[in-house]
């Protein structure tokens, strides 16, 4: 596992070990928490198997489209539930306070959670791609598979930041409710489970303001379902959204970690 480059920790072996140890602890803890792994692993795979494969007859021509957008929704879970609900639960349980008085840098704490979200996203994506390749009839050029995986994994980052800005502000039970609402709102209104063009005009207009919609479009471009004319705008929107979330995290930082 790679240590995050942002902290310059590579120079200090003790610090690197600390980062790695925290990551390992975080991944293990997530793995042992059914409330985390059921929604993050079972739900996306089950949804895709049911709506993307079992309920679609062969010859729909929508196999690549379905995988592209369901893949973005699969990245939503680990990011929102791990960061949003997770940080809030840690704070309520006093674990966050304990870690704050220990000599653990706050960077390690956040990096461990980000890496956990990425690892679980990777696991769920491997399962999705295996299903898609064996039962879903998805066939893509090799570069398109790689581009799709890149978009899907990258999707984790802005959603982690969104989850963190919720987790810093809400208590544990509120955070679970809010992140669940966000999960379904982002997935449905972002057109990740149902193509957007079936929605009424006003909902389509509303959807334009959701990062999930733009990540969905980027995934469709990566899977070569859609021409890439809009990727500049879509990428800029996702980047802008991530910056807005970073701002929200900074504003909530002091109060949030206590």
């Amino acid at each position, binding site marked *: *596992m790679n240590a995050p480059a942002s902290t310059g920790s590579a120079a200090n072996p003790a610090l690197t070990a600390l980062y790695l140890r925290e990551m390992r602890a975080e991944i293990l803890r997530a793995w042992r928490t059914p409330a985390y792994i059921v929604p993050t692993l079972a739900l996306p795979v089950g949804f895709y198997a049911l709506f993307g494969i079992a309920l679609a007859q*062969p010859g729909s*021509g929508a196999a690549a489209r379905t995988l592209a957008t369901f893949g973005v929704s699969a990245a939503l879970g680990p990011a929102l539930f791990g960061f949003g609900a997770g940080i809030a639960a840690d704070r309520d349980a006093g674990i966050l306070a304990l870690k704050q008085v220990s000599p653990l840098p706050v960077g390690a704490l956040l990096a461990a959670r980000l890496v956990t979200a990425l690892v679980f996203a990777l696991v769920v994506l*491997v399962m999705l*791609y295996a299903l898609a390749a064996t039962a879903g009839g998805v*066939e893509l050029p090799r570069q398109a598979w790689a581009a799709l995986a890149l978009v899907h994994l990258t999707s984790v980052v802005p959603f982690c930041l969104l989850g963190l800005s919720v987790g810093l502000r809400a208590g544990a039970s509120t955070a679970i409710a809010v992140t669940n609402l966000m999960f379904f709102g982002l997935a449905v209104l972002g057109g990740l489970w149902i193509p957007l*063009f079936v929605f009424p005009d006003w909902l389509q207009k509303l959807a334009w303001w959701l990062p999930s919609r733009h990540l969905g479009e980027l995934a469709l471009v990566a899977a070569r379902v859609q021409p890439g004319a809009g990727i500049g705008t879509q990428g800029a929107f996702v980047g802008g959204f991530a910056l807005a979330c970073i701002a929200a995290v900074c504003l909530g930082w002091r109060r949030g970690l206590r």
Partner: protein
Amino acid sequence: MRAWLIGGGVAAVLVTAWFWLPQPGDAVRHARPAPGFVVREVAVFDGERLQPDTDVVVNDGRVVAVGHGLQAPAGLAEIDGRGRTLLPGLIDAHVHTFGNGLFDALNFGVTTVLDMFTDPAVVRELKPAREAFAPSSHADLYSAGSLATAPGGHGTEFGLPVPTLSMPSEASAWVDARIAEGSDWIKIVYEPPGSDGLTMPFASLNRATLTALIQAAHRSSRLAVVHVTRSEPARQALSAGADGLVHVYADDAQDDGLAELAAAKHAFVTPTLSVLRAFAGESAGPDLAADPELAPYLSPEQRATLVPAVWRRMDPVLARTFHADRPMVAVGRLNRCGVDLLAGTDAPNPGTAQGVSLHGELELLVRAGLTPMQALAAATSVPARRFSLQDRGHIRPGSRADLVLVRGDPTTDIRATRAIVAIWKNGAPVERRRYASTGQ
């Protein structure tokens, strides 16, 4: 150290998995044709004429021999063809492919569809399958992809994003973009205001743009087919060099010169009586849904479009345009003038459904004046010839073994196409899907 080993191992597994992921055409390359068979002593409609008491040998997904008392290779299954007629897999020359449409089409013996507007991504994904000779559970797709229409024109109302155009100068680039997207031909919507003052409730391309599009398609060696519903635009489209009209004109069947013009221009017409009559309030849908030969195989989606629970209220201008009998008269005239007619349904528009409506269309074509043999050709060899589908629409050595075996003789009673005994796609038997009765 251990962390790096684990990380390296995981990375190696992921890269290996990446190489294992399927690439376009993999399923088609790896699939094997179904075992062959012989149909004995069957009446064969070969796409053009009837050959009584014939044997047909199928192997490796193709028809390999057609004749009397054939010696088949050992081990092939024998199928009794007595009292039955073997038809080439049917071709619906006007559909729109969405959802399970291709699966539903094959369930009724339609083995190839000519799609007149759908999502280009669907076309790209399904193109490799039509080259295969392996078992398949859906009809093969040929498609126009996106359609050429004006901003706000017909085709833009369904929600699917459509690249529109409005000027002749845009035509070349528009056609090039469709070909790059995977369109097999160019479909143009032409509904200009009539000289009688009749204006359709949506915008239309102008005549100069229509002409430029047809010319651009021809420069790229693609067919240019035109959606019209009235005789004046039909005349203009034919004069501009359209290869075919994908609806018959429904407004003025008194005009005899139009059928002659179509004949002189060697254009074809896909009348789509099924949808035109449905719009005129004479849908064949309820009759088809009640036919005991067809009903058990209708999916809930097919039922929903074949017999809509609520008929959308039609715009008054459109309601005046569509008439149940005038298109029938026009088809009769076109047929007498020797114009190529193609059987197409425009499924799944209201009053029609994929697959099943082609059987209704065949009956309507016969009622409009075609012989049953001509109607069968309109759903087999004629569309294959006009759209250059090399190995489809015929039963002869080398043809793709897309076949439909029916009871009786549809060359005398066209409704016999509904009494399906067996369907083969690429020489593999199709297990027809039956649905539980939906409580009628």
